[in-house]
């Protein structure tokens, strides 16, 4: 047992820190730390900066323009970038589609799409969920019917995160009704500007139009946009989900959130003293911090196993549950900490270029917003209930 990084790993960490000092635009880190909404251009700017350094394809192998980093380096990078309040790397092209194409895509698909992901030419969104296919993803009903060298796609996807910015969507579509539902699913790449696609925003409880419904009416998609084989899409979809679940613990986010929480509780006064010195409140903060310290090590244990070549299996379900619960607890404490100023619902003040003044201390609006918005953490990416099912089946064999 050695809880310390090697010299080589420490050196890497310093290199990342130096890079962030130099290259992370203060305008962006300021927005992230103040809980402001990032625009499409903000994300693109940060992606481009990382790409210029060769650090955008964090999970990608070198041959495809990625970093080739092992799990420990990825973890260090993740931790440092969240601590520095860098924008997150959007997962749809980089963490989700990229790995699927590398493993199952045709040579033409790889050489066309992978560089475009790194260069920011394409903005991908994820078209998995449907109104009737949430936890039961295999129930997708959007159909793709073969007609010559095209598929004709009809149906509806929903909860499509940031689909309003996307020019591409990767979809699970039904190509067969024979056999088990899983056996008739295909993985299709679709242009968002194809005729017959309509995107409608869904506003979430915090006021943010973060997700969308995407409707398909007789959308023509070239057969060359099929990934892998027809009716084998479920395999690819599951492969993608294991990648979606890397860094699922969100340790860096939790740590950043804890720092903010302590700042808020240090400034808010109750009964003439800072809230942070109130034993009732301090106890709750301490409790979640203790949980986080242990979870960070659980996370590192998983990472260490993964870099020794063991595939992360049901452990990622454990990390997802614990990680999201801890983050949600931190969000709830921050909401509680701001007191009466949790009430103002001035969501536009978090928007870029908005001239709407915030209300109360600068940390108040983002605290409520993050609390409500992050209720999603335990719902998406496989709900925490579904993760418990996985643990009880795969680890406990119940």
């Amino acid at each position, binding site marked *: 047992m050695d809880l310390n990084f090697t010299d080589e790993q420490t050196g890497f960490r310093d290199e990342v820190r130096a890079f962030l000092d130099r290259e992370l635009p203060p305008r962006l880190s300021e927005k992230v730390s103040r809980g402001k909404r990032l625009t499409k251009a903000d994300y693109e700017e940060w992606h481009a900066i990382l790409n210029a350094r060769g650090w955008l394809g964090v999970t990608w192998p070198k041959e495809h323009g990625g970093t080739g980093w092992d799990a420990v380096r990825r973890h260090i990078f993740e931790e440092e970038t969240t601590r520095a309040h860098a924008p997150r790397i959007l997962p749809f092209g980089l963490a989700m589609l990229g790995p699927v194409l590398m493993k199952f895509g045709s040579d033409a698909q790889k050489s066309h799409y992978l560089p475009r992901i790194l260069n920011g030419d394409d903005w991908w969104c994820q078209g998995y*969920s449907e109104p*009737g296919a*949430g*936890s*039961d993803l295999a*129930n997708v009903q959007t159909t793709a019917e073969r007609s010559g060298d095209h598929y004709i796609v009809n149906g509806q996807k*929903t*909860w499509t995160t940031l689909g309003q910015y996307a020019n591409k969507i990767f979809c699970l579509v039904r190509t067969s009704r024979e056999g088990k539902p899983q056996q008739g699913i295909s993985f299709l790449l679709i242009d968002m500007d194809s005729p017959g696609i309509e995107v409608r925003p*869904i*506003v*979430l*409880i915090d*006021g943010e139009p973060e*997700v969308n419904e995407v409707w398909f009416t007789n959308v023509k998609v070239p057969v060359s946009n099929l990934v892998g084989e027809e009716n084998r899409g479920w395999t690819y979809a599951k492969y993608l989900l294991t990648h979606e679940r890397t860094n699922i613990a969100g340790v860096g986010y939790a740590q950043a959130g804890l720092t903010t929480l302590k700042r808020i509780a240090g400034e*808010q*006064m*109750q*009964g*003439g003293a800072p809230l942070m010195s*109130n034993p*009732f*409140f301090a106890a*709750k903060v301490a409790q979640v911090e203790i949980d986080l310290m242990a979870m960070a090590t659980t996370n590192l244990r998983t990472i260490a196993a993964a870099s020794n070549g063991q595939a992360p299996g049901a452990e990622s379900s454990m990390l997802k549950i614990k990680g999201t619960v801890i983050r*949600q607890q931190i969000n*709830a404490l921050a*909401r*509680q900490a701001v*007191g*009466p*100023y*949790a*009430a*103002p*619902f*001035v969501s536009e003040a978090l928007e870029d270029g908005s001239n709407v*003044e915030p*209300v*109360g201390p600068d940390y108040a609006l983002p605290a*409520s917003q993050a*609390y*409500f918005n992050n*209720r*999603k953490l*335990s*719902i*998406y990416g496989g*709900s*925490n*209930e579904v993760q*418990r*099912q996985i643990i009880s089946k795969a680890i406990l064999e119940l």
Partner: protein
Amino acid sequence: MDFKLTEERQMLQDGLRRYLAANVTPEGIRQTDENGTGLDTALWQGLTDMGLPGAMLPEEHGGFGGGGFDIMVVFEELGRAGAVTPLIETAVLAGGLLGEAGRTEEVGDIIDGRLVAFAHGEPASRYDLNRVQTRAERTGDGWHLTGRKAVVHHASAADTLVVSARTSGDADAEAGISLFLVPADAVQLRDYPVYGGGHAAEVALDCSVPAAALVAEEGKAFPMIERANARAAAAQCAEALGLMETIKSLTVDYLRQRRQFGQPIGKFQALQHRMADMLIEIEQARSAVINLCGHLASGAGERELHVSATKNLIGRVGKLVAEEAIQMHGGIGMTQEYALGHFAKRLTMVDHRFGDTDFHLERFIRLSAA
């Protein structure tokens, strides 16, 4: 022992439930949020016609109710409907304070539907009722008020504010707090919507008012404020109970309807047990509200002990119910459009007024040791 409502209260409850079911809609709530003041004037008129403000006030102050269980019945129904109204502010808080001060004329107006808000909390006061830094200085023929008030609910819809200000003493002394009637157009308001519906405002005061603006005895307002606050907390806890009841039925309905893996998700034991826990906790919440409403007329010691007990329990259960309901709905529970969001946000915000769960836990320990 008798936990049944009196016939009159039963009628009030039935009539109100019918009225609200017909007049409060999600669209209405959304539209109201987007208008300038966050007030649904038609709804408020209807509720005034039904006599709601008067039902919050005792006969000796010109009202025709004012008992703890009047408050409970009315606010549980308002919560059940998710209605956004200024009833706490104008009738329970301002009306209660003005009634105690013998201001029968203003109380009469409030019973007729006039809107008065209570501007008490300040940017640095959090939940401490005694922490008042707004100052009132005597001038030749009246008072000059300076200071800031924070998150004053329904201020922009009101034509008058009852403002607390310090006429003597340190920033946190109970003695030395006075109340003044201030016309809304004499102050600066920064209006904004709040989570869960309705508007609030930041209030900046730098204005003169005549001597007659002083409500009640100079410097002696604290016990009045504490009493009014207890009644407002009871009203809000009853409203929370109504909100929970609706959240419960929305969630149970959803568990029955929503199918995944070829069956209603309500067939999954993991969700069944949590729904059962939610039900148990909501029954606890109902009992806590009954405890508080049944002790509003008790002496300050007993009354305040119940305020803290109930507010603590409602805070805990409210959080559980809102979070569990969203979780068990999945993505749909996260949307602004579906009804749950409004109820869950309104319920969450209950913990941000009149003292939160921890504030009252600490206070309960202190009061119960006394």
